[in-house]
C-alpha cells in the first residue's frame, strides 16, 4: 500500500510525465482507491465505477504531458474523474430517454464478503445519504461530497470544479444548512459516531 502523505507527488508527476513507467504506476497506486470511491459514490455500481476509474487513469496517462503545474495534479485528476462521471450520467439519461428505460437509483452493494447486518446498514446509509443530498442542488451536492466524502480542501475543490473559492464556499454553506436540517440522516450518523 502506497502512502500519499509520504510520497512527493509533484516529483512523481514530473518523472511520470517524462516517461518514467515506475512513477506512473506509483501515481496510479496512490490515487486508485480514492478515484474509484469518488466514482462509486456517484455512479452506484461497482462495475461501472471500475470502468470509469480505468478510463480516468487512461486519460491521465495520455494527458499528463500537458499538465503544466505538477503541484495541481490531484485536483486535475479529480476533475478528469468528475468529467467521466458527468459524461456517464449524460449517456445514461440519453439512453433512458431513447429506450424508455428506468434510471436505477439505489447503490449496488459491492461483491466483498459483507455480513447480512453490514449489507442492511450499508443500504440504509446510502438510502438516507441520497435522501439528504437530493435536497441539494447538483452543485451543492458536488461540493459537499468533495469536501466531506472525498476529503478535498476548499482550494482543491475550486480547482477540480473550475470555480472560484468564494463560489465553492457559498455552495458549501448552503449544503451544510441542508445537512443540518436532515435530522434523520444525522440521527443515523449520531448512532455510528458515538
Amino acid at each position, binding site marked *: 500500500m502506497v502512502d500519499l502523505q509520504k510520497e512527493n507527488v509533484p516529483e512523481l508527476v514530473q518523472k511520470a510525465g517524462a516517461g518514467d513507467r515506475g512513477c506512473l504506476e506509483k501515481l496510479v497506486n496512490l490515487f486508485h482507491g480514492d478515484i474509484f470511491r469518488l466514482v462509486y459514490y456517484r455512479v452506484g455500481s461497482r462495475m461501472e465505477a471500475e470502468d470509469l476509474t480505468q478510463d480516468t487513469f487512461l486519460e491521465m*496517462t495520455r494527458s499528463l504531458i500537458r499538465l503544466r503545474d505538477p503541484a495541481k495534479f490531484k485536483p486535475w485528476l479529480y476533475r478528469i474523474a468528475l468529467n467521466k462521471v458527468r459524461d456517464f450520467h449524460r449517456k445514461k439519461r440519453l439512453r433512458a430517454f431513447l429506450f424508455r428505460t428506468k434510471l436505477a437509483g439505489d447503490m449496488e452493494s*459491492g461483491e466483498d464478503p459483507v455480513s447480512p447486518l453490514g449489507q442492511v446498514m450499508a443500504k440504509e446509509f446510502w438510502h438516507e445519504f441520497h435522501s439528504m443530498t437530493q435536497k441539494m442542488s447538483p452543485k451543492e451536492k458536488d461540493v459537499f461530497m468533495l469536501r466531506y*466524502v472525498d476529503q478535498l480542501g476548499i482550494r482543491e475543490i475550486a480547482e477540480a470544479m473550475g470555480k472560484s473559492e468564494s463560489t465553492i464556499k457559498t455552495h458549501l*454553506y448552503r449544503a451544510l444548512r441542508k445537512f443540518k436540517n436532515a435530522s434523520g440522516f444525522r440521527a443515523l450518523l449520531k448512532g455510528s459516531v458515538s
Partner: protein
Amino acid sequence: MKDQHLDEDQIIVSMVDEHDLPGKSKSHLETCPECQERKGVLMAQLEGMGHMAKKMAPRPRSIRLPEPKISWGLSFRWPVVASGLASLFIIVAVWGLMFLGGPPLKMAPTPAGQQMVGLSFIDDILEDSVLPAYYQDIAPVSFEYFDDAFMDFVIPLEGSDEDTLENISLKKYNTIRKEA
C-alpha cells in the same frame, strides 16, 4: 456572555472557513466551550459520514495501464512501410516513363502500338481539350472551364489579397474599434 453565542448560521460559516467569521465572533468561538461543542458535534457527524461512506464502498480491483507505445520502426510497421515503398516505386516508374522515356509515344497500327493506348490516353488528359476542333466548334458551351476571375478567387495572385472581402471587413472593423 450568553447573548454573544454564535447563531446557527455563524456556526456553519465557521465550518466552511473559520477565517470568514467576523473578528468578534471568531474570538468568541475560540474561547466559548459551548459554541465549540456545537460546532464539534456537526464536524464529528460529517467526519463519521466520510468514514462510513469509505467503509461501505467496495474495494477496487487493480487496474492495468496500457503498455507504452513502441516507436515507429520497420519491424513494427513493416506492412505499412512495404506498401508505401511499393506505391512510391509505381509512381516513380510511371513518371519515369512519361518524362524520361524518350520521344512522346504515338499511336501505331501495329499490335505493339495498340498496347500503348493507355499511355496515349494520359497525353489526352494533359491536353487542354480532348475534343477535335470540329466538335469544339459545334459544342454549345465554352471549353474554357474556369475563367480568370474564378481562378483568381480560388488561387489568389501574390499580393492581390489586400482587397478581398474579408480584409475590407477587418479593416472596417478595426477602424470602428479605433474610433470607439
